[in-house]
Each structure stands twice: as C-alpha cells, then as structure tokens.
C-alpha cells in the first residue's frame, strides 16, 4: 500500500519547495515547517515501505518518458537504507534549521532550496535508471550551489558556490560521458527488451554488463568514477568541499556531510557489478579512496576553522567509503554492505558534529577554534552530544564509527592479503589521524581557558533536540544494526539477473594460482566471500555478517582499537589542559615547511584556480579571442579598410565592402578546405 505512494517521497518536498518559494515570505520562519513536514512524510512512507518489503522484496515502477528513456522508481535494499537515512537525518536537520535560520531575512529562500534539495536527493536514490539518477544528481548540485551561495552578498560565499559547481561539473561531464558510452555499448548489443524495459535501467545494465567489451567497461567505470569523485569530494576534485563551508552550517551538515556528498559513494555501490566487471575499475576506486582518506586527514590536522576540520574529515571519511567499495575486488558484494554501513553511520555522527559545531558557532559567533576554548562550561548539551559524535568518528570501541570504519579496515586487510597492502596501510594511518584531529577539535573547543570574549549560552531546544536524537544513533546504530544490515545489503544484487562469477573473470579478480577461481567468485555472489590462501598462513574464512572477524590475526582486530584510543590520547597530550604535555606551536614552528604545506592545503588552490583555471582555460579563451579578432574577422575588416584607402575614387562605399565580404567568404571556405584536408592527411578525421 505504501509502495503505491512511493512517488510522494519526492513529490511532497517539491510541493514544499513551490510553497516556500511563492508564499514562504508570508509564513512564519519562511515556511520551514512545510519543509520539515514534507521530509517527515517521506520518512514515514519509507518506514512503511520498509515494513512492507523487508527483507525479501523490492519495488520497481516505471513509465516511458521520451525517446528511449523512462522514469521509474526502484527500491531495493540499497536504495531503501539510503531513503531511510536521508529522510531521517534531513528531517532532523530541517527541524534544527527552523531554530538556526530563525530571523534570517532569506529564510523562505533557504527552506525552498532545502526542500528542492531534499526532493532531488531522494529522487537520486530511488531512480531506476542512470539518466534519471544523473538528472537528480545535477539538481542536487544546483541546490548545493544555491545553498553554498546562500549569503550571496558575501564575495567569498559567491566564489565558493561557483567553485563547487564548476569543480563538480568537471566530474559530471565525465559521468555524462560514462553514461553515453554505456548507452551506446548497450545499444550496440541489439538486445530484445521486454515491454517496460529500457537500456539505462539498472536491472537491464546488471543483466548485460558481462556482454560489454572489457576495455569499454573500464572506460565507462572511469567515467562514472569521475562523477563520483567530483560529488563525493575525492582527490583531485575535493577542493570545493572545504570552501563549501561558506554556506549556513545546516547546509554543511545536510549537503556537505550527511547526504549529498555520499551520492558519489552511492553511485559506485549502485553500479558495483559494472565496477566489479571492469578491469581496473575497482582498483581505481580503491586507490582514489584510500589516498583521499589519508590526504584529507593530514589537512584536517592543521585547520583552525571548526567547520573546515569537519569538512576535511568528511572528505577523509568518504575516502574510507570509496576504499571500502574498491576493496570489493577481494571480498565481492560484501564490500557494498560494509561501505554503505559506514556511509549511514557517518551521516549520523557527521550530521551531529556539524549541527553541534553550528550550535557552538551560533553562540560564540566565530568559526575559529583559536577564539573558543572552555565552551563546554556554557553548553553542556552541545558538549556531550559532540563528544559522542567525536568518539564515534574516532572509532572508539562500541560507538557506531568503530563498527563501520573498522570493518572497512578489516576488509582492506583482506584485500592486502590477496592483492595489495597499500590501501590498508593508508587507511590505518588515516584512522590514527582521524582520532587525533577529531579530539584536537573537541578539546580545544570545549575544554581549557576561554580564549576570547564570546557569547555564553546554550542553544534553544529546537536545535538541541535533533542533536540528542542524532547522538543516540551515533552511539547505538552500529552496535544494534550491524549484522542485519550486512545480510540485508548483501542480498541486494540477488534481486537481479547478475552473474558475479562471470563478472569476476572479466574484471580479472580471480588471482593467479588460485585453486578454484570460479568457486570463489560464486561464493562472492552468495555474499560469503572467501579470501585466498596467502603466504601469511592466515586465511580469511567465509564471512557471514559482521562476525567474520575471527578469521583475521588478533593484532589486526586489536589494531583499530589501539589506533583510536592512541590517537585520542595523543590529541589530549597536546590539547587537553588536564593532561597537556606538549605545546603544538613548539613542536612545529610557523616556518615549518610541512606545516605550511598543510596549512596551504598542498597549494591546491594555487594550482587549480591560479594555474589551471586562470592560466590554461582562460588563456585558451583569450587566444581564441585574438584569433577571432585578428584572423577570422580582423583581416576582413583590415582588407576593407585597405581597399577603401587604396581606391578612394570609389564613391560607393558599400560596393567596396560587398566585394570584400565576398572575398572574405571565399577565403573562409578556402581556409576551411585547407584545414580539413590537412586534418584528413594526418588522419585526425
């Protein structure tokens, strides 16, 4: 029954968007309650659908759109958990925003854009085909642009919005290229589609991935990965995400931490069979993810803006999720469950941390942690909820982040045993840094002396309420849900006609010398990955749910706990006044090149904006402009002036001009012919 109303999950926020846009000015708080209600209705519907179809069914509705494309709704385990997470977290954030944005003259615009974002994000999640997913993907990008630039009078906000849109646009172009490539490859198979089936529908893609040539698969996978890298802030397209903190904090929490940025991870998970089949597909995912996880964590260490610390942390954690999917080369579809579990857990504690930071900023009126200190004395609720969020992010035992992140590290270890240890090493290092920068932040904000004269009051209950609810989930979700979650997500691809054994052979995931390659691949399909025998003598046994860690050496299992606690302690030695042993400024001076490099964010801004955008791209434009003025058009004007000057006795000006334009035209043709002939000669066309 709920399934029949699945379309309302998107339609209601669209309605809220229109209402806020056109009549929001006349409503209290800009009509924010409409946005909350619409999203909450989405949560209720999602829960209803969950109760209807859990654990064995999926929903697929579709209708024709235009040409060879359709619109449709596909709710399978993967989409359903995302729907639940997004509606839940976003409802809380919208509620919080009703307090946070209270009094802002642009509140109606805020809630309109927030509602449009909600609709787009949910539409992205349950799209049944890649084109529709792309459309909503672009729309969330638009909303992100609008909301980052919400305070558009601020030059830095306008610039950050533009940067975000353009950087992600680069990824989106690759994504689009990937879709087009995929479409053409599927079209060339001349499939006979049943009525209601369309080429870009996920079930159709899953069923026919194996028929696409391997080199094409790699290209498609790289294209899609490009899109994911842009949206999920992965290296090298992550540069927009820290700047995106120019928007209101609720925007950072909603779009740039909990939901939108996870879309890239979701895309890779959604297209997992294709990535699995593409040689180098998952390798690229693992490489990008693991590197980003470490790289961003180092930058999180030095930032002073509390929101930027969290932004770098988001980039880093998204790297973990990507890496988690990438190591699926070793563990199969199990990786999807692990990665999405971290995605969900992360959205709880990261939304919590951002909203907590927003609560702090709301009170102290600065983002700079150097001007905070001792805030905990005045904001008990915020301090303790943020402590839970921080512990979860750092991966402290029994908190959500511990279960989710550490499982990624464990499967990265299995990947290491089978293929390559590099992702594992990078992820462990990143995990150490995560614990350090998280508690550097928490200690220096909430403990110690008051370093400036800031506002001292707790935030209103409408803001604290969501914090508390999120804290409950940031603590308990991992403990409570892990096993069921893994087995539910593992069943995701069983609903489709997809042959992972064959895909594994195409993708080359069957290691040389492996005794029973097909058997291993088959078991992966059943969600019971078996790790190859290795020189370590430690064979990962087939795992079921989250209890499979018994197969790892004890030190591999203990390590994440040591990492988390050690990191927190280390941060305490520097930043917690009760146990402080070192002064950070004495360890590294301001002149320290490494510190400077980190503070400058590895000079990415200089390289990307300064060099690439301004020099290469704009330079090319200027050269084109010169060619246009001097050559394509210029010589023609020059000629007409020359002829006029030379033949002053010609009285009728127009006559001279006519001849010149005729000459110009003819010459244009000649130039073109020469260019094309040359091009054909050298075999360009």
């Amino acid at each position: 029954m709920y399934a029949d109303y699945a379309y309302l999950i998107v339609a209601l926020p669209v309605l809220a968007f229109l209402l806020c846009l056109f009549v929001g000015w006349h409503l209290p708080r800009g009509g924010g309650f409409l946005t909350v209600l619409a999203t909450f209705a989405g949560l209720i519907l999602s829960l209803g659908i969950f109760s209807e179809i859990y654990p064995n069914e999926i929903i697929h509705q579709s209708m024709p759109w235009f040409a060879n494309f359709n619109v449709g709704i596909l709710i399978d385990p993967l989409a359903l958990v995302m729907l639940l997470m997004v509606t839940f977290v976003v409802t809380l954030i919208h509620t919080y925003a009703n307090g946070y944005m209270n009094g802002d003259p642009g509140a109606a615009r805020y809630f309109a854009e927030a509602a449009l974002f909600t609709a787009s994000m949910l539409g992205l999640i349950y799209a049944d085909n890649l084109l529709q997913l792309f459309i909503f993907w672009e729309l969330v990008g638009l909303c992100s642009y609008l909301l980052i630039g919400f305070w558009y009078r601020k030059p830095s906000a306008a610039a950050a919005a533009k940067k975000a849109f353009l950087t992600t646009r680069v990824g989106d172009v690759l994504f689009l290229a990937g879709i087009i490539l995929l479409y053409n490859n599927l079209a060339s198979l001349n499939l006979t589609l049943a009525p209601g089936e369309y080429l870009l529908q996920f079930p159709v893609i899953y069923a026919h991935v194996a028929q696409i040539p391997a080199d094409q698969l790699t290209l498609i996978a790289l294209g899609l990965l490009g899109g994911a890298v842009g949206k999920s802030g992965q290296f090298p397209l992550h540069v927009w995400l820290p700047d995106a903190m120019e928007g209101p904090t609720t925007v950072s929490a909603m779009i740039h931490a909990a939901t939108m940025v996870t879309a890239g991870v979701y895309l890779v998970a959604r297209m997992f069979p294709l990535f699995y089949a593409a040689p180098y597909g998952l390798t690229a995912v693992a490489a990008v993810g693991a590197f980003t996880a470490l790289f961003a964590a180092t930058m999180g260490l030095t930032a002073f803006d509390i929101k930027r610390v969290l932004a770098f942390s988001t980039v880093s954690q998204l790297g973990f999720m990507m890496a988690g999917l990438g190591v699926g080369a070793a563990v199969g579809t199990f990786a999807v469950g692990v990665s999405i579990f971290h995605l969900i857990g992360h959205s709880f504690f990261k939304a919590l941390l951002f909203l907590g930071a927003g609560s702090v900023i709301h009170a102290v009126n600065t983002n700079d942690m150097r001007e905070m200190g001792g805030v905990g004395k005045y904001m008990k609720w915020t301090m303790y909820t943020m402590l839970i969020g921080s512990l979860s992010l750092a991966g402290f035992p029994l908190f959500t982040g511990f279960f989710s992140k550490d499982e990624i590290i464990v499967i990265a270890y299995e990947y290491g045993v089978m293929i390559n240890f590099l992702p594992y090493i990078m992820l462990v290092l990143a995990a150490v840094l995560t614990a350090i920068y998280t508690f550097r932040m928490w200690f220096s904000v909430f403990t110690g002396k008051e370093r400036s004269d800031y506002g001292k009051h707790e935030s209103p209950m409408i803001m604290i309420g969501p914090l508390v609810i999120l804290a409950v989930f940031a603590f308990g979700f991992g403990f409570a849900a892990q096993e069921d979650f893994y087995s539910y997500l593992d069943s995701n691809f069983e609903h489709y006609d997809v042959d992972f054994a064959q895909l594994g052979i195409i993708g080359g995931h069957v290691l040389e010398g492996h005794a029973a390659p097909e058997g291993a691949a088959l078991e992966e399909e059943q969600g019971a990955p078996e790790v190859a025998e290795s020189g370590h003598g430690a064979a990962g046994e087939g795992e079921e749910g989250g209890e499979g860690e018994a197969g790892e050496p004890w030190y591999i299992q203990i390590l994440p706990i040591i990492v988390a606690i050690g990191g927190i302690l280390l941060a305490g030695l520097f930043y917690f006044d009760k146990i402080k042993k070192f002064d950070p400024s004495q360890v590294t001076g301001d002149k320290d090149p490494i510190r400077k490099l980190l503070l400058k964010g590895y000079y990415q801004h200089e390289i990307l904006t300064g060099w690439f955008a301004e020099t290469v791209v704009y330079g090319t434009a200027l050269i084109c402009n010169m060619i246009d003025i001097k050559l394509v058009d210029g010589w023609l004007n020059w000629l007409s002036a020359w002829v006029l000057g030379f033949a002053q006795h010609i009285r009728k000006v127009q006559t001279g001009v006519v001849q010149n334009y005729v000459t110009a035209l003819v010459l244009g043709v000649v130039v073109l012919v020469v260019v094309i002939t040359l091009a054909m000669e050298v075999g360009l066309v």
Partner: protein
Amino acid sequence: MISNVISLLIAIPLLGAVVSFFAGTKAKFVALIASLIPLALSLQMYMEFDKTSKLMQFVESYDWVPSLGVKYTVGVDGIGFPLVLLSTIVSVLVIIYSWGETKKPNQYFALLLLNEVGVLGVFTSLDFFLFYIFWEIVLIPMFFLIGSWGGPRKDYAAIKFFIYTHVASLVMLLAIFALYFTYQTPEGTRTFDMLTLLAATADKTIFPTGLLNIIFAGLLLGFLVKMPAFPFHTWLPDAHVEAPTAGSVVLAALLLKMGGYGLFRVIMPMLPSVDKAFVTIIAVIAVISIVYGAFMALAQKDIKKLVAYSSVSHMGFVTLGAVAFTWMSVTGAMFQQFSHGIITCVLFMSAGTIQHVVGTRVIADLGGLADRMPKFAVLMMAGFMASLGLPGMSGFVAEFMVLTGSYATLPSYTMFVVFLSVAITAAYHLWAMQKAMFGPILKKYMNVHEPHAYELFSMAMIIVLSLIFGIQPGLITDIMGTAATQVMEPVITLTQMGVI
C-alpha cells in the same frame, strides 16, 4: 479545422505589420493581437497535428507563375512545425518584452511582425522560389532594427549583417537555380517544387556526383552562414551587440533557426548522395563551432557578446546532431533548435535589461545586482542554468540526445572535445552571472530597481516553457522523432503523398 491555416498564419502578421505602421502609439496593441492570433492558430495546429505521420500536413498549393514552374506551396511536417510553434511563441513574448518601446514604436512593432512573416514563410514554404523570397524578406526588418534602433556601431553592424548573410543567400540562390535548370519533370517542364527537386537529387543520372557536390556546397554555405558556424560566424556578435534587445532575441531565437531548418530540410536529404568528405567537413565545423564558441564566450567582456558566442556554441550541437545521422542525434538536433530558440530569449532579455537598468553590459563593471533586483536575478539565473544544460530544463535533453546519438557514428576523441566544452559552458555562464548578480552591491547601483513587469513576465514565461519541455520533452520530441526518421529516408514528394 481551419482551412488554409498556414496562409492565415502568414497573412495575419503581415496585415498586422501594415496596420501597426499606421497605428502610431497604439502599434503595440495591434502587434500583440496580430501575434496572438498566429500563436492561437499554431496551438490549434498542434492539436490537430498527426505526430506519427511522415507526410506533409496542412498543405496548400496554388499556381503562381505557371510558365516558370513557380507555385505557392506551403505545408508543414515534423521538421517545420516545431519551428512554426517556436516562431509564434517567441514573437508574442518579444512584443510583450518591448512594451515600453518609445522610439518610433509604429515602425518598431511593424518590423517585428514582418520578421515573424518572414520566418513563418521560411519554415512552411515547399517551393524553392517562395522559400528564397521569405528567406530574403527576413533580412530587411532585421537590417532596419539594427540600423535604426541599434547601439553606437549600428551602421557597421547592420551593413555587415546584411551583406554577409545576403552574399551567402546569393550563393544559395545560385545552387537553387542549378537544381532548377538541371531537373526536368516527366512532362518536360521545370519546377521549383522543393520536395520534387530534393527527391531527384538521389538520382545519379540526373545529378552526377560532381554537379551535386557543387550545388550542395552552395546550399550548405547559405545555411552555415545563417546558423552561424565557424568560420562564418563573425557577423553575429557584431549584429547582436548593436541590435536592440528585441532584435537580438528574434535574431538568435528565430533567424539562426532558419540555417538549422535548411540543414534538415535541404541538406540532409542530399547528404547520402554527395561526396562523403562533406560529412567530415560538416562534422569538423560543428565540433569547432561548439568548442570555439564556448572558449570565445569565456573571453568576452560584454555580457551580450558572451551570449552571442554561446549561440555559436549551442547551434554547433544542431550541426553535429544533423551530420551524425542517427535517429537519436537528429531528433536531439531538432530539439536543440527548439530549445535554444526558447532559452536564448531569456539570455538576451537579461542582457538587455541589465543594459537599460544599469547602463552598461561590461561584466567587470557589474556587481551585486541581485541585492536590488532579486526577481530579475532569479529569472536570469534560471535562464543561465537552462543555457548551461541543467537537467530538468529543455537544453539538457537536447544536448544529451545529440551527444548520445553522435557517439555512435563520430570518432570518440571528437566527442571528448565536445565534452570539454560542456564544462567550459558552465564556466562562462557561472562566471558572468556571479560577477553581475552576486557579491556586495556596488555603491553606484544602489538606486537600481527591478525591471518592468512586462519584461519579467516575458522572461518568466520562457523559463516555464523551458521547464515544461525539459520535464516533458515528449510534447515535441514525438513530432521530431517522426521527422528524424523521415529525413534519414528518401524524400517523399507531395505527388507521392497524394496531397496534390
């Protein structure tokens, strides 16, 4: 069903032009009525239009100069009809947008209506002679619009526009004559009948490849200059910069579409019969136009010039889709014609409104205007987003179809270049918009205010249309899809259709 609907469609604006010329300050009311009636007629035609038929519909044919084989034959199929609809829509909106025109309004509105007559004639004529007359008629009102209502360099721009496109038209005329004199009907007479002549070009015994190549090149030049495609585009920025806003809108939204229409109507039926090198030539021109146009737009300092070059880039997609010659790409190219026609209106209206509200169009001198004109800012932003290909609006669907369809036949590295331009396109749109609209309001613009309601109304209508066709493209791509199948097959003449 109204009989002779196409003749009415052309006659009413013509009559309106005459009346408004003598109507003095009341001209705008005359013009509005004289453009609303064709809009109503074309909507009526849309209702009656058989979307699945590949045949000409609403055909009227009368002898005109029988001794020369000249006939008055008009009719529409899936190629022409969407552009008829576009013309009637844009004409109404541009007249509403110009509601406040005070300089010689009677002539101004008469010229706008005359323009509508010309483009409607071009999109419906099925006789080359008639086609050419309408083709040339269009030049006259545009010449005067630029020359009398234009900016500081209006004389230069008007003459350049006129001569450049006129010379190209003459080359086209020569090609038409070559067709006319080569082909003889079975009865031994000559004919200007478009479909008959185009159908005959497939016959190698009548049109040997060498001759056909020359004819083809002449026709192609006429259309490419009009589009305009690189390297024949330089008349366009000058004409746009100097033209009054309404002139720019009509120029970009309707006049350029004549070039694209020519590609589908005339060029594509001949494409299978001519030298294969032409395919390469046209493809190269298309790709260069797309990428070069985008880079050129990025380099511009004047927002109107930026928009003008964006037209070069966007019209390149039409050429690309046409020459890629797949069902998907051709449908997409046709839709791009329609979509660009709608979206470019709002871009030129934005530039025009900025010009008359702020007094300059130099992007570097603008800043923070959203503060003073938020409604305008929303509409302009929506227009720019539509133009850069935001999904949900019509431009995305068109470009997606062209790219998807072209991939099948064109080499993949050419597609890579085109994809690059998609990113550049986003860059120049966002850069211009951000500089003009966002950031702190500049002191000198503190007294700037929202533009007139009629300007906002026209812009808003265009955004709505772009959304409608972006969300439900099938409204018009159903017609275009049939037409795309048709242009890739041999031409069916009116006689074969049995309509004459």
